[in-house]
């Protein structure tokens, strides 16, 4: 037996079909054909027209023929393909072109087990990929849902904050002030909870937290504990549960830990609320602190039923974990405590106390080298003083767009109250129309508005400003103010982002961030400021003719109130064209006296009329009326102090009066 015979026998026994190529897609078997071959193709003819029966082989023959014509060391092998027997059984096959004893040979084999292993591996990998894609989609959906929920929750909070700020400026009885303080406290707590939900679930925010201030933050653990207990004192009292904070043995001891104050206070609040939930009336909840070397420990002890026997401590701090007795909320409170304490490098756990009740404790690393944060006075925390709104350095022209009517009304009220000139818009399109009609120092835009949203308005504003020497200061009001959101909003053209729900201080802070704006114009001035006329300049312009000035003043005093009344009438009739024309005339007459604020207001009114959008006109008209009233007063004062010469001396020729009855018909 020659060597090729041995090889042929070997390959045949291994289940290979060895076929000699005779050209034109036909083959002759050179060894016994395996059973699978006969099950697939008719082998009775000689040669076998295999490429006709098998399109895959017909395609592979291109590569095989190239190999047979110029054999190379490289293998000429097909990938796996699958053939089907007449009864539907699938057989995987591979083909290889060979030169055996000078013959052009095609070796076909069934990779069998090896193929099924490969299938199984790929199936597992692709299933995992599909699962991953599904999971990513689910997470994305949930994130969107969460942001929608947070946005919806934030809206009423914004109204509550601003409404309570407005109320606090009214004259209230001491009792009403106490109620207001409670309301503010509750709305602040609600806001903190919403932010906690975001912090808990948002990866972006979580990343920013890790990289943020907490690395360097230091907070007084004792002060936080006192603050949290003070805030919950009335709730405990209502349930007749005593709440105490044990005083440290060493009053001079430092209780600074590496933590961020508001979240540390939230941890205490969550633990206290949890303790209260399981405390029977008449029992006591105690907050205590301990020093443990490099760590400081805080604990909350209650006299309730103790921990459930079937739950391990780590399960109690799990996500969405609620006690069997109910009464809890979403099951996020203790989970929040755990992930926050973990993040700060601390630990948290709980245990049943020997007598009765349970202890929930956490410990945090001591703050290294940082000066203590001044602890706020507890009494002050319980009844925080109403923040006095700080008027900005000078009044501004502000456009405020928000689709939420309450927020719009209240915010505009507050901004006007401190002397700003505010124009409101109900949506993005209206905002853009008003921006086109009138110039503003600051444009405050709600991010999510129906139709045209804040981003789109900001982009349009920036596009409009391109190439011009003007730039409005754009502030986005958004419930989503994570780092990525802020980056996106700034990319859209906003200068800064005001996180919703906002309080007045936040709003003033955002306004204060605006760069130096142009000197106050008519729209920006405080209404009470008297309009000043530089009479010397006016006189200089008319060649020092005091008599002429007097006549001008008389004419102005006579005509102007009528003009303003006519403008108001045109506005009532919604006649934009007439309003523009009247405003134009008024603009000219006030210019004579150098009354720049009034001139600017008249010009703004004229522009609104020309743009055909009178929605902001009532506000402007009010301002104009105030301005004109001041101006008239000013002019009357001048006329009184500088009486005109007797009429006889005035070199004015008057036309003789027409005689009656001579009117031309």
């Amino acid at each position, binding site marked *: 037996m020659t060597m090729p015979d041995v090889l042929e026998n070997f390959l045949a026994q291994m289940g290979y079909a060895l076929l000699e190529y005779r050209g034109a897609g036909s083959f002759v078997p050179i060894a016994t054909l395996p059973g699978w071959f006969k099950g697939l193709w008719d082998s009775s003819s000689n040669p076998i027209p295999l490429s006709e029966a*098998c*399109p*895959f082989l017909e*395609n592979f023959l*291109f*590569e095989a023929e190239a190999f047979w014509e110029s054999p190379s060391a490289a293998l000429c092998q097909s*990938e*796996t*393909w*699958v*053939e*089907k027997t007449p009864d539907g059984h*699938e057989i*995987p096959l591979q083909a290889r072109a060979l030169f055996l004893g000078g013959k052009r040979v095609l070796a076909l084999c069934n990779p069998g087990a090896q*193929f099924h292993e*490969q*299938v199984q591996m*790929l*199936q597992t*990998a*692709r*299933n995992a*990929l*599909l699962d991953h*894609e599904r999971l990513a989609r689910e997470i994305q959906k949930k994130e969107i849902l969460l942001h929608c929920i947070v946005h919806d929750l934030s809206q009423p909070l914004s109204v509550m904050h601003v409404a309570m700020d407005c109320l606090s400026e009214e004259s209230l009885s001491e009792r009403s002030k106490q109620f207001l303080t409670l309301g503010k406290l509750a709305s602040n707590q609600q806001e903190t909870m919403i932010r906690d939900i975001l912090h808990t679930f948002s990866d972006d925010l979580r990343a920013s937290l890790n990289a943020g201030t907490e690395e360097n933050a230091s907070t007084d653990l004792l002060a936080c504990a006192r603050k949290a207990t003070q805030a919950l004192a009335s709730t405990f009292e209502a349930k007749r549960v005593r709440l105490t904070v044990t005083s440290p043995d060493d009053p001079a001891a430092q209780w600074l830990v590496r933590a961020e104050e508001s979240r540390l206070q939230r941890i205490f609040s969550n633990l206290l609320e949890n303790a209260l939930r399981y405390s029977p009336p008449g029992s006591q909840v105690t907050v205590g602190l301990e020093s443990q070397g490099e760590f400081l420990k805080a604990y909350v002890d209650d006299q309730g039923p103790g921990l459930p026997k079937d739950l391990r401590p780590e399960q109690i701090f799990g996500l969405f974990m609620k006690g069997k007795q109910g009464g809890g909320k979403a099951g996020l409170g203790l989970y929040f405590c755990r992930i926050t304490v973990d993040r700060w490098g601390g630990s948290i756990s709980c245990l049943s106390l020997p007598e009765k009740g349970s202890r929930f404790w956490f410990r945090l690393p001591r703050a290294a080298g940082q000066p203590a944060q001044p602890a706020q006075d507890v009494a002050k925390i319980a009844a925080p003083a109403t923040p006095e709104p700080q008027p900005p350095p000078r009044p501004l022209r502000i456009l405020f767009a928000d689709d939420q009517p309450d927020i719009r009304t209240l915010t505009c009220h507050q901004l006007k109250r401190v002397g700003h000139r505010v124009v409101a818009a109900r949506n993005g399109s209206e905002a853009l129309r008003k921006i086109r009609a009138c110039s503003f120092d600051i444009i405050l835009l709600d991010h999510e508005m129906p139709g045209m949203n804040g981003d789109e308005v900001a982009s349009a504003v920036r596009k409009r400003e391109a190439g011009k020497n003007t730039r409005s200061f754009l502030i986005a009001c958004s419930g989503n103010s994570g780092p990525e959101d802020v980056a996106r909003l700034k990319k859209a053209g906003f200068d800064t982002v005001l996180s919703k729900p906002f309080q007045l201080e936040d709003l003033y802070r955002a306004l204060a961030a605006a760069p130096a704006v142009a000197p106050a114009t008519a729209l920006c001035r405080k209404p009470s400021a008297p309009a000043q006329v530089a009479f010397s300049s006016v006189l200089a312009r008319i060649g020092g003719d005091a008599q002429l000035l007097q006549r001008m003043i008389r004419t102005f005093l006579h005509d102007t109130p009528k003009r303003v009344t006519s403008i108001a009438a045109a506005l009532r009739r919604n006649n934009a064209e007439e309003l523009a024309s009247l405003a134009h005339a008024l603009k000219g007459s006030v210019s004579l006296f150098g009354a720049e604020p009034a001139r600017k207001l008249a010009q703004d009114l004229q522009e609104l009329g020309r743009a055909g959008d009178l929605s902001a006109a009532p506000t402007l008209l009010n301002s104009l009326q105030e301005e004109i009233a001041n101006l008239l007063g000013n002019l009357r004062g001048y006329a009184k102090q500088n009486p005109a010469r007797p009429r006889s001396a005035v070199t004015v020729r008057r036309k003789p009066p027409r005689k009656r009855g001579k009117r031309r018909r």
Partner: protein
Amino acid sequence: MLQKKICMLGSFAVGKTSLVRRFVESIYSDVYQTTVGVKVDKKNVQVNGTDLTLVLWDIYGEDDYQKMHWTYLRGASGYLLVADGTRKATIDKAFSLEQRVREEVGVIPFVFVINKCDLSQDWEVDSALQAQLTEKNWNLLRSSAKTGEGVEEAFALLTRKILG
């Protein structure tokens, strides 16, 4: 009888094999069975009075584990480009595959099929993508191998395009 080679192209798990099985054998299985290698099926059809055999090359979906062999398209008269409407990434993949086919084998007839329309509530075809598709001016059909919707139509449309 006249034979025409048609290739099935698209990302993995978009339903290429299911479309072929629905078309050839009128059967469907909900269980995802990945295709390794190539499966070739045949079906006799009559289009515009012409009898012909469609030779359907069901080629594995290209991914990180299996790279496409463009020699499989040798002699193809056309191809069905398949995407899964519930997975936007498969539509992007279809765009790149179409471009690759043009580069590798030139311009040949094809029909773009967005499969799984029985799950249309989960489709990720947004308005931007719709606009992109409209701009491409492709022959586009929605199909469901599960219900059979659009399957016959897709193959018939492709065959008509092949026959000119």
